[in-house]
């Protein structure tokens, strides 16, 4: 049994980590936040040239063809570095959807450009409060034209391509929409994690192209989010580990009452609980990686399990990191809040815990 990554995979991860340490120090994250930019284009170009995030796109479509295990480890480093990149939108979701259900022509058209970073793609499903559900979707396609309003759309302001869930005669379908088309208007909306910006997009009779079978939109979203959930879980454990490391380092260096605050049991046990939560999430995520890489029938259960525990671990680690830092923890100047915000972004972006708890129990049930 090897529920672990190989030495080669660990070596790749170490390379990716060194790359981000060099190319994406926290000042890069803050520059994106302070400027109101969508992402860091230089970093994006470098990452794309390295092929890190295109690890799971087959070489035939311009990807690195390395595989999902490698992509999981890249995601862990993205999370650790708080990298301001449209990975969740463009790679974990849009590229996966096209791979999963696109026609050969669609794959040839889009995947190489997504892999190269020339095209940023996103997925636009939500329109209102609440997790994704058919009755919350009123965007509509008739006569090949899309009309409706989507918000929030992650990376929506900078994306070139959107995969939009909309209503048609057969139910909810997915459509490829070139966001440069006539009839598209969009604006930035303030995001809880300004390093992962959100947009509102209005579609007013925009020409679209069907992706996948008509009427199967929600099933496809569900399927792709099982896959994305595992990649996001790796971002979460990377982020949680970074937050735990920050808290530990601060607890060792900060003195009160003549000793490091990390010597007080209140802090020691809080950090121990963070560690425990993170290890549980990590182990579940490794299992998820196996299920993703092997396309195992256990994928839905593994994805939901990884996601539920990774959401919890990153929430706990990022908020207790603030608590460990005391007053400095809630300043803008310290980086604690960047993890707290990112933890919330990652907890929301593929649908929130209540949705995944349902999925977990449903999957467990059908597995038993």
């Amino acid at each position, binding site marked *: 049994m090897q529920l672990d990554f190989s030495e080669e995979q660990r070596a790749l991860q170490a390379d990716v980590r060194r790359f981000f340490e060099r190319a994406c120090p926290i000042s890069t994250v803050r520059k994106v936040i302070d400027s109101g930019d969508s992402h860091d284009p230089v970093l994006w170009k470098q990452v794309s040239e390295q092929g890190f995030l295109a690890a799971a796109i087959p070489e035939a479509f311009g990807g690195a063809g390395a595989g999902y295990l490698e992509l999981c480890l890249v995601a862990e480093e993205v999370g650790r570095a708080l990298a301001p990149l449209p990975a969740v939108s463009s790679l974990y979701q849009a590229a996966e959807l096209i791979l999963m259900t696109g026609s050969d022509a669609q794959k040839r058209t889009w995947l190489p450009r997504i892999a190269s970073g020339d095209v940023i793609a996103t997925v636009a499903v939500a329109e209102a409060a609440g997790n994704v559900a058919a009755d919350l979707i009123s965007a509509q396609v008739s006569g090949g034209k899309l009309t409706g309003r989507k918000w929030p759309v992650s990376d929506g302001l900078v994306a070139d391509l959107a995969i939009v869930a909309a209503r048609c005669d057969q139910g909810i379908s997915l459509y490829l929409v070139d966001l440069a088309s006539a009839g598209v208007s969009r604006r930035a909306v303030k995001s809880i994690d300004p390093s992962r910006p959100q947009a509102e997009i209005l579609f007013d009779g925009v020409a679209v192209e069907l992706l996948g079978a008509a009427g199967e939109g929600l099933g496809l979203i569900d399927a792709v989010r099982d896959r994305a959930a595992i990649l996001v879980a790796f971002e979460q454990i990377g982020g949680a580990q970074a937050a735990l490391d920050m808290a530990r380092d601060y607890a060792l260096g900060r*003195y009160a009452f003549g000793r490091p605050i990390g010597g007080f049991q209140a802090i020691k046990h809080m950090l121990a609980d963070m560690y425990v939560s993170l290890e549980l999430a990590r182990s579940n995520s490794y299992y998820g990686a196996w299920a993703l890489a092997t396309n195992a029938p256990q994928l839905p259960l593994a994805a939901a399990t990884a996601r539920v525990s990774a959401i919890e671990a990153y929430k706990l680690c990022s908020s207790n990191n603030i608590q460990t830092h005391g007053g400095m923890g809630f300043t803008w100047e310290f980086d604690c809040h960047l993890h707290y915000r990112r933890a919330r972004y990652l907890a929301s972006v593929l649908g929130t815990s209540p949705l995944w708890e349902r999925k977990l129990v449903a999957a467990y049930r059908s597995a038993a």
Partner: protein
Amino acid sequence: MNFDDTPEEAAFRARARAWIADNAPHALKPELEVAGFGHLHLQSTDALAASKAWQKKKAGAGWAAPRWPKIYGGGEVSPIEQVIWGQEEGVYAKLAGPFVIGLGMCGPTVMHWASEEQKRSLLPRLAAGEDIWCQLFSEPVAGSDLAGIRTRAERDGDEWVINGQKIWTSGALDADWGLLITRTDPGVAKHRGLTMFFLDMKSPGVEVRPIRQMNQESSFNEVYFTDVRIPDAQRLGAVGEGWSVALTTLMNERQSIGGSMPTGVPELFDLCRDMDLLDDGAVIARLAKFAARSSGLRYTAFRSISALSRGEQPGPENSIGKLVAGSLMQEVAQFALDLEGEAGLVEDPLLAVHQGRFQAMLLRSPATRIEGGSDEILRNIIAERVLGLPADIRVDKDLPFKEIPSGAAAR
């Protein structure tokens, strides 16, 4: 058991209510009602000016510092009457923000330690909102460990020369006076070498820099002192007695009774109702547990008020308020965003669900769990003062201050 006023309380309440009906700035009411956490912002007028105007008007009728002696600008009401006044003042109390530190902490300290002449000159102006006070206690290396402060005061004839830095000072930008704790002797044990002053905030060498919080507001400041001079007459208590003076201030910090802190629970109910989730089992389970805690806080505050009404000191139950409210609000906010789905990502008040109030709670609540005593300090206080458990071991208690290990963070 009843929720009724005594006849005396009812008479007092009627008097307060009538005065408020005649005098409050009713035009501001709608804006005040929706004002959220943190600094008060008003569209229609300058918030500080409105605050000062209301405080001044209250002072004229003895409502500005209700418990204080009349001679110092107060109203000489009883503790329970002060609570009733607060209930009646309602949303207009939000205007008192700039004066809370002065009225609640600096004023009582001045009243206890200053000369009669100083009291007569300072306190009525404080009560009337003519002077704003701030409290210069915490330092970058001394938060929970307040007695570890390092700002130096060195005697020079009839004056003291101050150098150092304070942090987490609310209202320092607008303040006229500051209550300042300093170290006058680093060669003795940490609690023994401290001395308290009050300081003219317009003195040369005082520099105030706002701190930007994670929620992008600035409720707090850093204050730097470079060769700031204070006359010895502005010393409160003896040289080296500063810790005793500080305890007067801190004891007053924990005495506020009346309202319980906001928890977000009513707002969460509204969200669930609007989203039609009140029949969802998962929602019910969380909501019920949140509501039970929130309700517990509310009736705990009522029990304290009841004690005041009997003329007694409230018991230790009052100490749980912030500890419960801080993490409750954080959990409520996270759960609300879980319900909002992806829409929870949007902070924009114009677009976000319920004007982004849960996003604001999420970004504000971490500060609540730290400011004015962290969760960990509050649990220690409950364990030691309420349950009578032993104090933590203090390795630095008997060391000369300058020999206490301070680690890299102190440099």
